[in-house]
């Protein structure tokens, strides 16, 4: 920082300071209110006194004809409730190419508008894994200068396409005394409003008529706690109360009725209109497809060669821009670009399989993060596309975005999900299979003996399911010059105490069955050698050792997939020694998870076996206390040692 720039700042700022508007000081009533609210919401800096949201609908016209627009008008009254000092309030409103945000205003008490106040900024919203999208956010920020400070802000959001008007969530990241959302539904519009996850909340629905005869439906939600961001939480549609909008139909000014999504068939019809418009040119992919299957004898071999080719050669690069978020790119384009999003990849796979003589269909679905099924049709149900192969009366769900997944396997994130499969002008509903935890089995077997204070022996490790696809994919993406080191680091856990050698692996190109590693292992610093005793830790992995849940966590904990690890370690007792202590066994079996650790003496060997499983990939909040207790026992067992004493 130079002195010159310091002086420059002095000069440059003077006019701005003169312009900024001063907000009135907090009133004694608001200071008191802040104190009262802080008792209710002790961990929050600000609270909403009242958030009022109203939705109105209009018939509008543009070049392509009449359409229904939706206007959202929202005002949130914020009060700072905590701290001796200052906080910045910040929030963001999402929009995209089919919607817009405008009319942001700030108010002091008595609806006195604050001009030249706060900051408003529009920014692109970068979603992880999406190369480019039209999603943007409108960022609103303003200062709060102490408890009792009141500021309201208002904005308008317009949806130009009613089909994307799907839901409204009551919660914010701060608590709210009252959230009032109303929908003024004109007679020409037929929609249903469904309250989801309302149980346990104080949410009241009322219905009135406006002067014009419009139906006004209002939901008043009282005393909502802050919705805190927590890692590994399930999708919001599973637990947060929200209004889900069932868009049925509207009648235009000429009196003609237009269906939106009154039934699932209408949702399919829209999807179908988009897929019909794909200008697929299968001739451009025929030669490659035929080349892939020419030497393949069985159907399974043919399918595999095509499925794996798409996995290996088409990179996932997603452009979610306007209708491209819903309409698959043509097969020949994805083929020639060698990249595409899930829809483009599913479409390419389908076309290739069709060329090879199979019955393959485009399939819409929502991944596990979405709670909905097709009972009430909406575009919010689906966020993914795969290809379903129909063969011998069975359905195979093929997702080429899951790199290295084998034919017949289904990734956890799309297991047990309702899907919509294309069937000409009709459609089929089905559910993807759910696999037990054994799909993800990781098995480790080690035979140790003690040599020069080290544990030395031979080991075998194998992975299946998600662990396997993860390793195969990661391995394929690692720079060739460091691949060997990477494998070593995977096996020695990047732990200086563990040396591994003579590593033999299964064929990493083969995605069927399990992958395994056989290797020699030597582990240092696991043994404390006293004159007459040896204290030994033979389990150096100690999974879940520190995995406990904080008492403040409010949401269930969801793993990326279910988990199943089986470990068996044998240690040959050296001549002249006997076992004088074995760590206690731990056995905790519940429907959601289990931990089983056991030491036994069998002949001249100590045999340690450990089974850890997370059966449904989710630990419900109700299980947290019990889980923490179980982890405590596991930790104790990990900390304990095997004691060998001289005979």
């Amino acid at each position, binding site marked *: 920082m130079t002195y010159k720039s310091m002086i420059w700042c002095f000069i440059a700022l003077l006019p701005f300071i003169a312009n900024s508007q001063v907000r009135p000081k907090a009133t004694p009533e608001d200071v008191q209110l802040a104190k009262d609210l802080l008792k209710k919401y002790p961990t929050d800096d600000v609270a909403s006194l009242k958030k009022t949201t109203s939705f109105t609908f209009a018939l509008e016209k543009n070049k392509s004809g009449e359409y229904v627009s939706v206007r959202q008008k929202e005002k949130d009254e914020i009060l700072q409730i905590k701290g001796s*000092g200052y906080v910045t309030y910040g929030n963001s409103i999402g929009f995209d190419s089919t919607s817009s945000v405008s009319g942001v205003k700030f108010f002091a008490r008595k609806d006195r508008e604050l001009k030249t106040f706060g900051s408003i900024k529009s920014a692109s919203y970068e979603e992880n894994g999406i190369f480019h999208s039209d999603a943007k956010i409108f960022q609103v920020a303003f*200062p709060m200068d102490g408890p009792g400070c009141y500021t309201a802000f208002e904005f308008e959001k317009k949806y130009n396409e009613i089909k994307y008007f799907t839901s409204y969530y009551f919660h914010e990241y701060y608590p709210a005394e009252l959230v009032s959302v109303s929908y003024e539904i004109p007679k020409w519009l037929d929609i249903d409003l469904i309250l989801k996850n309302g149980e346990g909340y104080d949410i009241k629905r009322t219905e009135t008529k406006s002067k014009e005869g419009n139906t006004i439906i209002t939901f008043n939600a009282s005393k909502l706690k802050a919705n805190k961001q927590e890692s590994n939480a399930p999708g919001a549609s599973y637990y947060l109360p929200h209004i889900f909008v069932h868009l049925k139909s509207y009648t235009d000014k000429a009196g003609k009725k237009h269906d939106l999504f009154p039934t699932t068939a209408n949702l399919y019809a829209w999807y179908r209109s988009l897929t019909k418009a794909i200008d697929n040119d299968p001739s451009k992919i025929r030669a490659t497809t035929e080349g892939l299957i020419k030497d393949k004898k069985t159907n399974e071999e043919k399918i595999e060669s095509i499925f794996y080719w798409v996995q290996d050669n088409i990179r996932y690069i997603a452009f979610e821009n306007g209708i491209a978020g819903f309409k698959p790119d043509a097969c020949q384009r994805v083929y020639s670009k060698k990249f595409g999003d899930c829809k483009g990849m599913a479409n390419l796979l389908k076309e290739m399989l069709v060329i090879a003589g199979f019955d393959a269909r485009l399939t819409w679905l929502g991944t596990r993060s979405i709670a909905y099924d097709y009972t009430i049709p909406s575009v919010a149900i689906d966020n993914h596309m795969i290809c379903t192969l129909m063969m011998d009366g069975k359905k195979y769900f093929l997702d080429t975005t899951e790199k290295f997944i084998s034919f017949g396997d289904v990734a956890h994130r799309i297991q047990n999900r309702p899907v919509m499969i294309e069937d000409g002008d009709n459609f089929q509903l089905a559910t993807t299979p759910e696999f037990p935890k054994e799909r993800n089995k990781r098995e480790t077997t080690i035979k140790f003996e003690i040599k020069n204070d080290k544990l030395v022996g031979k080991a075998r490790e194998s992975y299946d399911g998600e662990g396997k696809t993860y390793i195969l994919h990661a391995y394929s*993406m690692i720079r060739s010059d460091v691949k060997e080191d990477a494998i070593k680091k995977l096996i020695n856990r990047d732990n200086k105490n563990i040396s591994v050698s003579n590593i033999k692996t299964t064929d990493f190109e083969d995605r069927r069955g399990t992958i395994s590693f056989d290797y020699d292992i030597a582990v240092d*610093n696991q043994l404390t050698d006293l004159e007459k005793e040896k204290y030994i830790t033979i389990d150096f992995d100690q999974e879940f050792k520190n995995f406990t849940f904080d008492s403040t966590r409010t949401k269930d904990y969801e793993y990326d997939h279910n988990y199943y690890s089986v470990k068996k370690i044998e240690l040959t007792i050296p001549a002249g020694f006997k076992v004088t202590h074995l760590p206690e066994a731990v056995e905790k079996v519940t429907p959601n998870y289990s931990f089983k650790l056991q030491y036994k003496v069998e002949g001249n060997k100590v045999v340690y076996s450990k089974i850890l499983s997370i059966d449904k990939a989710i630990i419900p909040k109700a299980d947290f206390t019990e889980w923490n207790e179980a982890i405590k026992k596991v930790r*104790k067992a990990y900390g304990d040692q095997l004691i060998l004493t001289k005979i």
Partner: protein
Amino acid sequence: MKKCAFLFVALLISFSAIAQSRSEQKADAEAKKIRDEVFGSSDKDFAVTAVPENLKKESAVIICQKLTQVFDKEGADIGISSNKSLSTTETIRKRIKLQDKSAVETFSEFYFKNTKDIGILIEKPDGRKTEINLKEAVEVSDNTLIPSIYRSYYAFSFKYKKIAIPDLQPGDIIDYFYRVTETYYIPTVTQFAFNDVIVSLANSYPTLKQKIEFKVEKQFYINIKSLNGAPTLTPENQKEGNYSIYTMVLENQDKQHDERWVYPYRSTPTIKYQVFFLRSEGSKTNYAVGERGKPKTSITPDEAVEQITNIYEDASSYIVSAYGYTVSKYVTEQLGKETDPAKIAYAAYSYLRALISAPVLVETYPGYLDQPYETVKEALTNADLYGPNNETISDEIFTKMMASVFKKKKIEFRVAFAVPRHIGNLEDAILANEFMWGIHVEGPKPFFLFAPSSGTLPGELDARMQGVDAYLINPKSKTGKKYEIKKVPVSTHENNATVEKLAVTFDEGMELATFNRNVTVKGLNKDPYYNSTIIVNDYLDSEIAKYDLKPRYIYKGKKDKMAIIDAGVKSAREEAVKNRKDSQKAELEDNGFEIGTYDSFDLVSDGREKAKPEIKFTEKFTVKNLIKKAGPTYILDAGKIIGEQLEVKEDELKRHYDIYMGNTRSFNYEIAVTIPEGYKVEGIDKLNKDVDNATGFFKSTAKVEGNQLIITASKAYKTIYEKKENWPEMVKFLDEAYKFTQVKVVLKKA
């Protein structure tokens, strides 16, 4: 009337729309011309497709990379007021063979500066070439995600675009270039120095051929130096019209290796260059330039001294005269007629050090403009952004201010100029601004002084300067010896030492260990503690008063704004105290401790005064899992009490580059573990370690005294530089320290 206005506006709009589309077309045509010129080049090295057998296992191989840097001028040469602009145009072209999926992934999302002057060509193994249509590129909203491989040597632009490269597969060659021009308008100056460039030529992939070409207009002068195996210019005197062309070629270059303690400019092929413009040949210049049309590849000490003397004398004196007076005044007030140079230096140095922190407050207020309290709070709590450790006074201003004080006090001194260690040696200096300035005080006890960071004391010399040669010059003296070269001393590991005294006790259930930790840090080891343990306004208020540095607040006279600022400062301090505890706790957790509770932190000394030069603090916390029940006994992770030590992993054992460390340092632990009543301790012999060699040591002892297990441990890095051949020696003591952390002892019933 209104109608007219409307028409006029409409006309303007349509006119500008046409103009835009025309200029767009022109730019497109120009861009195409550039693409044709670059891709149409007859350079055979850009036609190579094969990669040598020994590089087949590499992820990618750069077949050829070429940087072309043109230095040019426009406008007439007549008189100093003629219009004149200077420009530099950088073209970088790379031809890379992608050999695996990782490389394909790296280049499949391609980033480039928002310019039309770019081209990307994909060449398939069968020779098919496809030029990528850049119209499908989209803007990048988060620049921090842009991989470094796409950044330029010379220019920096904030707007980037990205494109998904279609049909890219292992075996393909990606051949791309971009061109960036920077223009400087200099209607009146007689001399101009372009930005100096120091660049390591190492790439993350092996490079078969790397070419650098300078095309320099005849009125320019170029200084260039090749280091660490970088090629020299060949041929030296090739002309093309008004330009001289200089090229350098580097062949069969190894990829860059990722290692700790590396200074890339000292260990990998590196070039430094700078181009100067003089309006007329032979005119007076501050810079050490050679002859027109002939690159200057070294400067003699005499030239270097002359150049830095010129720059020193020319350096802006406004700040110096404004503050120099105040500094001298303060020194006189404090010391009266004192003549001891060390005392005078200390007083002036402390004043300037306080000055570094003081303006932080003033300058950062404006950040959010209408939210002054937010910025004050941020300034005081977010040490990473505004903390004292990140504030340094410019070495030029420091040197000139100290010089003015010494002159007034009639203390004999010379100005010191040295090249920082991470840049290179003194004799390799070639750029105008490569030197850092300082002061060398003469007399029976001579000493160096370099600009402080806001926590240092005068003897704690900037690590970048330690061990380097410095020119000592007397700028005003026209007679006598022009300069002397003197080495800046290197501080010892005893100078830069941390001492931890740890008292460890266990709770009754033998589950929790309570730590009373007493830490004393001195010398350069204090550096990381400035931010983590010291709260700026704990010392700032008193120092601002002491040195009369009260900032002239921008809100002066506005009472409500001042109240806001004061409240902001108060709240910021509260938060800083809380944050300090949190960050200390996090620091311990990073160091391998499972913290149960973090109970207290007390700063005993902030190390800002000569009389109390150490940062001292005490803290109390509990640690889980340090002691564990094993059958009838307890196992204590005794080695872990000193915290985690560096793990030299298997893949680090092979060393490619020499070892450069910031400074020597040592870490010492004196540990007293209270053995619970009724227990005895066994297995402590493994806690005795002793590896000591020329590079450093790790030594430890353990004994039982009464009911206490007394452990001592010391680790020292004795040197700041080691040849790569000595790496195994370093590994010996580093490994010994790691092994120590793995030692467990057994507590048995007595």
